[in-house]
Structures are given as structure tokens and as C-alpha cells.
């Protein structure tokens, strides 16, 4: 006989658990999917708009004057690569060595101050960095230049590279450092030959993500590298870049320029996707390396 009070009891535990499980599963799946929807639409839209304007000339030709058909963004693609190279020359050594300092010797007040500054710097709007470099490089040189653009992007890379390097170097188990020290290795040798080796996948990932982040920056380039409709590989001259070219073309009133802006956007997104994929590829074995 069931008790007459049975119906007032809470649901049997198992049913309640299954219900909660189902609800949570549905909720988390939905939210995860919702996060992906904008990315999916973005990729689809950029591809749909950009693909028709992509052809060989786009990669090999200079921009055509208004009204003339054809033309490409060859100079902007090369320009972006040059700017990334310049930025890396400044951002990677400072970022990686700074990360090593923070991880190995950063337990003091100076380390705390550097860490805090890096966090603030990574939050500084990119246009502010552009203005800063304008005053720092462009004004003394009396002209816009690839160099100035590289400095602006390089400054933007530093905090990302520094903090990810620091975190990943910290993740290297103490036992590995001690193994090297117990063999009579000096501290620098231990850091450069063992710790960095163990952390390399993570450091590379941080570098690639930092590059992916600056590759699409427009604002800091507007008054540093400026932009150019010509071939230029000289570092003291203004240089074209994909983001600025896309910006210029997209706000222009001409339809074929707008179409090319989409194509430029597609190339940019593709570069970033490739870099992100490379970052994932570099990290694939990390869980085994850092036990």
C-alpha cells in the first residue's frame, strides 16, 4: 500500500536528477551554439561577399585608379606581412624575454609593477597606441612610415606575448628545473635549455595568437603606416596594409572598391584563421610535455 502522502513527496531522486541533467545539458549546448552562431555567419557572409572579387589579379596587382576595372591589393598583402615582421622584431624579444623575467625573477615588487603595466597596456585602446607612436616616431621623422606602423603593432604585441610566455613558463614543473640544477646547470642554462624547451609549444601559441590579433588592427596604422596605393617596401615610407586598405575601400562610394574591400576582408580573416589553426597545431602535444 502506498501512503496517501506519497503524492506530496518530492519527485523520486532519480527522476529529479535526470531532469536536472537534461535541462543543464540543453542549456549549456544552446549557449555554446549561440556563441558560435555569430562566427559562423561572419565567416559565411565575408566568404560570400569576398569570393566573387577574388582572382589572381587581386594577389598580384596594385590597386587600380577609380573607374578602372581590375586591380588588386598585392601591395597591401605584402605591406601587412612587412608590418607583422617589423612588429615581431620589436614585440617578440621584448615579450618573450620579459615573460622569462616575470616567471623566473618576477616575485618582487618590480615584477608586480611590470605585470600590472602589461595588463594595463593590453587594455589600452589601439587608437591611443597609434597616437602615442605618432608622437614618438612619426613627428620626429616628419613622415608616416612602415617603421612607425611596426612599432605601434609591436607595442600591442608585447603584453600578450609577455603574459602568455610567463604563464606557460610557470607551468613547467619545478621537478624539471631541479633536475637541471642538480646536474650542475646554471640558472640561465636551466631556463634556456630546459624550461623554455618544455614551454615552447605554449610560447609559440602565444606568439601566433598575438600576431593574429595585430594582423587585423586598423586604428594604430591610420596615423603611423598611413597607407599607400603604390608598391613600397621601404621602411621609412608609408606602406599599405590590408586592414587600412579594407577600411579605405569599404567607406568609398565606388562599387568595385567595395567589392575589393570584401575580398581584402576575406584574405585577412583567412590569415587569422590559419594562424589560429597553427597555434592549435603547435599546442596539440602540450598536455604530454607539461605533466
Amino acid at each position: 500500500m502506498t501512503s496517501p502522502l506519497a503524492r506530496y513527496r518530492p519527485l523520486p531522486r532519480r527522476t529529479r536528477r535526470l531532469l536536472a541533467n537534461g535541462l543543464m545539458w540543453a542549456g549549456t549546448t544552446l549557449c555554446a551554439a549561440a556563441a558560435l552562431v555569430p562566427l559562423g555567419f561572419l565567416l559565411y557572409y565575408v566568404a560570400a561577399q569576398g569570393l566573387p572579387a577574388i582572382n589572381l589579379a587581386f594577389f598580384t596587382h596594385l590597386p587600380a585608379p577609380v573607374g578602372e576595372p581590375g586591380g588588386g591589393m598585392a601591395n597591401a598583402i605584402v605591406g601587412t606581412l612587412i608590418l607583422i615582421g617589423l612588429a615581431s622584431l620589436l614585440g617578440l624579444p621584448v615579450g618573450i624575454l620579459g615573460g622569462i623575467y616575470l616567471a623566473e625573477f618576477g616575485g618582487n615588487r618590480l615584477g608586480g609593477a611590470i605585470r600590472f603595466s602589461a595588463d594595463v597596456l593590453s587594455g589600452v585602446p589601439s587608437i591611443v597606441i597609434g597616437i602615442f607612436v605618432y608622437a614618438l616616431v612619426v613627428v620626429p621623422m616628419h613622415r608616416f612610415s612602415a617603421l612607425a606602423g611596426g612599432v605601434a603593432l609591436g607595442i600591442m604585441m608585447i603584453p600578450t606575448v609577455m603574459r602568455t610566455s610567463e604563464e606557460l613558463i610557470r607551468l613547467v614543473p619545478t621537478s624539471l628545473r631541479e633536475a637541471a640544477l642538480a646536474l650542475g646547470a646554471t640558472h640561465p642554462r636551466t631556463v634556456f635549455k630546459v624550461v623554455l624547451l618544455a614551454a615552447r609549444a605554449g610560447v609559440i601559441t602565444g606568439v601566433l595568437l598575438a600576431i593574429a590579433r595585430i594582423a587585423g588592427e586598423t586604428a594604430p596604422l591610420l596615423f603611423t603606416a598611413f597607407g599607400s596605393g603604390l608598391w613600397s617596401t621601404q621602411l621609412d615610407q608609408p606602406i599599405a596594409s590590408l586592414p587600412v586598405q579594407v577600411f579605405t575601400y569599404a567607406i568609398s562610394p565606388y562599387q568595385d572598391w567595395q567589392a575589393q574591400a570584401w575580398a581584402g576582408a576575406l584574405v585577412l580573416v583567412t590569415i587569422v584563421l590559419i594562424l589560429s589553426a597553427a597555434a592549435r597545431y603547435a599546442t596539440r602535444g602540450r598536455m604530454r610535455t607539461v605533466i
Partner: protein
Amino acid sequence: MPSDSLSPRSHQTAPADKFVVRGLSFYYGRFQALRGINLAIRERQITALIGPSGCGKTTFLRALNRMNDVIDGARTEGAVLLDSEDIYQPHVDVVALRRRVGMVFQRPNPFPMSVFDNIAFGPRIHGLARGDELDALVERSLRRAALWEEVKDKLRDSALSLSGGQQQRLCIARLLAVDPDVVLMDEPCSALDPISTLRIRAIASN
């Protein structure tokens, strides 16, 4: 740890003292881990330290090659004489000391590189050997650690692909390659299976 819980057990007749420990105390911040230890360790012998876990065995061993220096807020008192020279004197070169007094840790800690590079790490940083000489040294070290037969065809593979017992013997071989005066072993078999344990015991007796 009270000093009387550390009892050296000698198996042979007594040669000279390698280490003489005098009034050694050690603090992790405010916590005192070692209290006034006096002990002599003879050369060419196996000296075993026995005690319950947490009694300070590891701390004591790490005091013998100053691995405790790495720890923040650690403080050492007393003297540790190695060949009658106090290793805690300020002028002592810690790096050179650790080369002479090597250590095998509780858990195997191979470097994330190939088997060969693991063994060659020490000889390379100390400039002991190169080329064919280095190859020979690596082989000799692996043989001394009874690992050669198992890894001779995998020298280029990652050391992390070896089993736990092999990794520990690799760490021993890595240490033997720099030819230390003293080998400190911190429960090297606690994470291993009985067969690996037997092998490591055999290496130690050699």
C-alpha cells in the same frame, strides 16, 4: 626531525668520511624541518636514511647539495663538510657543488627531449665530451644504469615515451654521465613497480 632518527648503516669497513654534517638545522619560513643533525657519511658506501614520511629525509638530502637554496624563505644553520670543506660558506660555487653531488628525485623527471639528449645534457653543458666520445659516454652511462639494452634502438625517441621505471633509470644514467662524486637518491623507487625497484637497487650496489 630529532638527530637520532637518522642512523647511518655501513656495510663495509670504514673508509674516510665524505660528508660530515654538524649541527644542521633547516627552516621553511617559521617551520623548523631539521633540528641539529650530526652525521658522518663515508665514501664508497651506501648510506640509507630511514624514517616515517614527513620526517625530513628529503629536506636533509637536499641540504647536501644545496637544492634547498631554491626554496623561498628557507634558512639553513650549521655546517655540511664535503671533503672537509663547508659547502655553506658564501664563496662556494653552488653550480660546481651540484655537479659533484648529484641527485635522483622521488619521481622520474626526464627532460622533454630525446633519450640521447637527456643523457647528453650534463656532458654538453660541462663540455665533457662531444662527437664519438659523447656517443660512447651516453652508451656507457645507459649501460651503468642497466637501461642500454631497452633503449638502444630508441635513442632518438622522446624520453617521455618510456615507462616510469625506465624513466627513473634514465634519470640515473643522466646523472652518472656527469660522473658525480656523490649520488643522492631520494626514494627513487617509491613511484615504481617491484621489478624496476630491484633493478635500481642493483645499480646502487654497483
